[in-house]
C-alpha cells in the first residue's frame, strides 16, 4: 500500500471520529443541570411564559436530537449561531480570539520541538554522564511544576522584577506585531515547559533503545561514519515514537492554554472558554469544545501520516 492510499484510509477513519466528537460535545453540555434561561432568571424574576418564549427563541424547548441536528447542520458551515451573553455571532467571538491561541500554541510547540529533540539526542548519546543526569532533573521539574504556578513565577520574575516582558497584553497592536509576540513568549514558555520535559525524556529513552539495536552495530560494521550512523539510522528511527507523542502534546498545548491564558489574561480561546462556562453560554462553549476536539483529531491524523512516512512497516 502506498503512502497515498494510507492517507486516504486514515482520512476516512476521521469521519466517524468527527461525528462522535460532535455528539459528545453537544451531549455533554446537556448533562449539566440548568440552562441559560435559568442563569438569566437568577437575576430577574421572569414570568414562566417569558422563560418559555426565550427557550423557544433559542430552540431549547426542542427534543435533544433535533437540537443536535439543527446545531450540526449549521456547524458544518461554521455557523454556530449567536452567543447568548453578547448577542454577537459565535463565529465572530471565536474569530477574534482563535488567532491569539494559535500564535501561542505554535510558539509553545516550536519551543518544545526545537529544545526537546536536540536535548534528548544529546542526553541519549551521552547517557549516564553528568549532563544526562542534569537533564533528568530538569525534565522531572518540568513535568512536575503546575502550569499556573510556573506562569505566576515567570510573571513575577521576568515581568515584575526584571521588566523584560509586559504584564498585560498590548492593545491596538496587530497579532504579529513585535509587542504581541514579546507578550506571548512567557505564556508559550509556560505551556511548552511540561511538553518539552516530556518529549526530551521520550526522545532520550527512544534513542537509547535504538542505540542498542542490532542494526546500529551493522551500520557501524559497514564502516559508515559515526555521524551518519546516528543521524541517518538512530535519530530517524527514534523519532518514530516521538512523533506520535508530539501530536498528543499539541492537544495538551491547546487544552493547557485554558489555564495559562487565565493566568496571563491572554486574549485567546482558552480564556473565552472559561468566561463563557461561567455564564453558561452554550453556543460558544460547544463551538470551542468542538474546535479543540477537531484540532486534536487532525493533529493525530497528521501524526499517523508522519508515522507511516517514517516507518514503512505501518504503510504495508
Amino acid at each position, binding site marked *: 500500500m502506498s503512502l497515498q492510499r494510507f492517507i486516504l484510509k486514515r482520512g476516512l477513519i476521521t469521519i466517524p471520529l468527527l461525528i462522535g466528537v460532535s455528539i459528545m460535545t453537544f451531549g455533554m453540555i446537556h448533562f449539566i443541570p440548568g440552562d441559560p434561561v435559568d442563569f438569566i432568571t437568577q437575576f430577574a424574576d421572569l414570568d414562566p411564559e417569558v422563560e418559555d418564549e426565550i427557550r423557544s427563541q433559542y430552540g431549547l424547548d426542542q427534543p435533544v436530537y433535533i437540537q443536535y441536528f439543527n446545531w450540526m447542520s449549521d456547524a458544518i458551515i461554521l455557523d454556530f449561531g449567536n452567543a447568548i451573553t453578547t448577542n454577537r455571532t459565535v463565529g465572530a467571538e471565536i474569530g477574534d480570539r482563535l488567532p491569539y491561541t494559535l500564535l501561542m500554541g505554535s510558539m509553545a510547540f516550536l519551543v518544545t520541538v526545537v529544545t526537546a529533540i536536540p536535548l534528548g539526542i544529546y542526553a541519549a548519546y551521552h547517557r549516564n554522564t553528568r549532563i544526562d543526569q542534569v537533564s533528568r532533573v530538569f525534565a522531572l521539574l518540568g513535568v512536575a511544576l503546575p502550569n499556573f504556578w510556573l506562569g505566576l513565577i515567570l510573571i513575577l520574575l521576568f515581568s515584575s522584577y526584571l521588566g523584560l516582558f509586559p504584564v498585560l497584553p498590548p492593545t491596538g497592536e496587530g497579532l504579529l506585531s513585535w509587542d504581541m509576540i514579546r507578550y506571548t513568549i512567557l505564556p508559550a514558555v509556560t505551556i511548552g515547559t511540561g511538553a518539552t520535559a516530556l518529549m526530551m525524556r521520550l526522545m532520550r529513552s527512544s534513542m537509547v533503545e535504538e542505540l542498542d*539495536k*542490532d*542494526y546500529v*552495530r*551493522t*551500520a*557501524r*560494521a*559497514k*564502516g*559508515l*561514519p*559515526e555521524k*551518519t550512523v546516528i543521524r*541517518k*539510522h538512530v535519530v*530517524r*528511527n527514534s523519532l*518514530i515514537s516521538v512523533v506520535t507523542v508530539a501530536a498528543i502534546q499539541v492537544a495538551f498545548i491547546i487544552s493547557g492554554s485554558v489555564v495559562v491564558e487565565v493566568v496571563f489574561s491572554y486574549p485567546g480561546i482558552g480564556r473565552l472558554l472559561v468566561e463563557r462556562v461561567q455564564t453558561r453560554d452554550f453556543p460558544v462553549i460547544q463551538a470551542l469544545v468542538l474546535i479543540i476536539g477537531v484540532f486534536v483529531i487532525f493533529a493525530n491524523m497528521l501524526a499517523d501520516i508522519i508515522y507511516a512516512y*517514517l*516507518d*514503512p*512497516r505501518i504503510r*504495508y
Partner: protein
Amino acid sequence: MALLEVEDLNVRFYTEDGVVKATNDLSYQIEAGERFGVVGESGAGKSVTSLALMRLIEEPGVVESGEIRFKGQNLLDLEYEEMRQIRGNEIAMIFQDAETALNPAYTVGEQISEAIRVHLGLNEEAAKERAIEKLESVGIPDAPQRYTDYPHQFSGGMQQRAVIAMALSCDPDLIIADEPTTALDVTIEAQILSLLEDICTETDTAIQLITHDLGVVAEFCERVMVMYAGHPVEMATVEDLYYNPQHPYTVGLMSSIPRIGDNRDRLQTIPGRMPDLIENPPGCNFHPRCPYAEEVCTRMEPPLVDVETGVELEEVASDQQTAACLEHTGDLQKGLDYTVTVREETSMEADGGVTDE
C-alpha cells in the same frame, strides 16, 4: 604472513559484579581464502572475539592487551577514521539475526548501497547497480525489483542473503560470519553455507565462521578452533578434529550431538556448566567438568601445545593440531580414555561419531 594474526588478545568487561575475562591470551591465524571455524558453547567468547576484530566492543568492554594484525597492520593501533575505512570494506561482518541486523526503516537496497557509496566512492546510480549485482550474486530473484523492498518484505532466508550481499558489497578480504545460519531452518542453512563456500572459492575471501553447530563446521570449514571460557582448547584441521579429537571438551561436544539410530534414552551432555568468566577455576578451566581430570589439573594451567610433540608453538602451521590439555605435556597420569568410532555407512563426509568408554 597470514591474512589475520591474532596474538594474546585479552578482552575484559568491567561489570558491577567483577571483571569478565571474555578472552584470555587468545592467539590464532587465518590465511587468505581460508575457511576458519570457531566453535564453543554460548559464552565461550566467540562473538566477543569477532567484535574485537572489528573494534566494535562497546562499554563496559575493552581490549586490554594483545595485537590484531590484519595484513601485517595492528588494527588496535589505528585511528578511528582508519579503522572505519577497513570496516565493511576489507573486513566485513555477517550477523546472526538478519532480521534485526537490518534497519526496518530503509530499503534493503539502500542499506547495501550506502556502504558502497562510502567505501568505493561511487555515485547513487553506480552504487545501486553494484548493489543489485551483489543481490543477484547471493541468489535473490528479481533483484532490481527487490532492491526497493523493505526488510519486512523479505523472508528470513532472503534477509540473511541480503545481509551477506551487504558484507560482500565492497569485496572484503575477510568475512566474519557470526552464527549466520542459526536462525534459519536446515534447508536454507545448507543453501546459505554453499553460497558462502562458492563466494569464498571464487573471490579468495577468507571466512571466520562462528558457530556452536559442529555439523556446520564439518560441512564448511577447513580449520577449526574450539573455544572454552575465553581460551582456545583445540585447534586443528576439520579432519583431524573430527577423526582424532585431542581435547576432552571437543570429545564432549561431539558426543553431545544426537545421532539417528542411537538407542540411548537420554541425550548425552557435558555435565556442569561453563564457569562464569569472572572467576575462572584454578588450573585447567575445564577440569570441574572433565571426566578425566586428575589432581594435577586443578593446579596446572595447560598450554596450547602440538599434540605430537607436546611443545608450545610460536606460530601454528595450518596443518598442525594443537590442544590445551595436560595429556599432551605428559603431566596426566592416567591419560585420556576414549575411543573414536567412525561410522562408514553414513556417506556424509567427516561424520565422525565419538563415544566415551
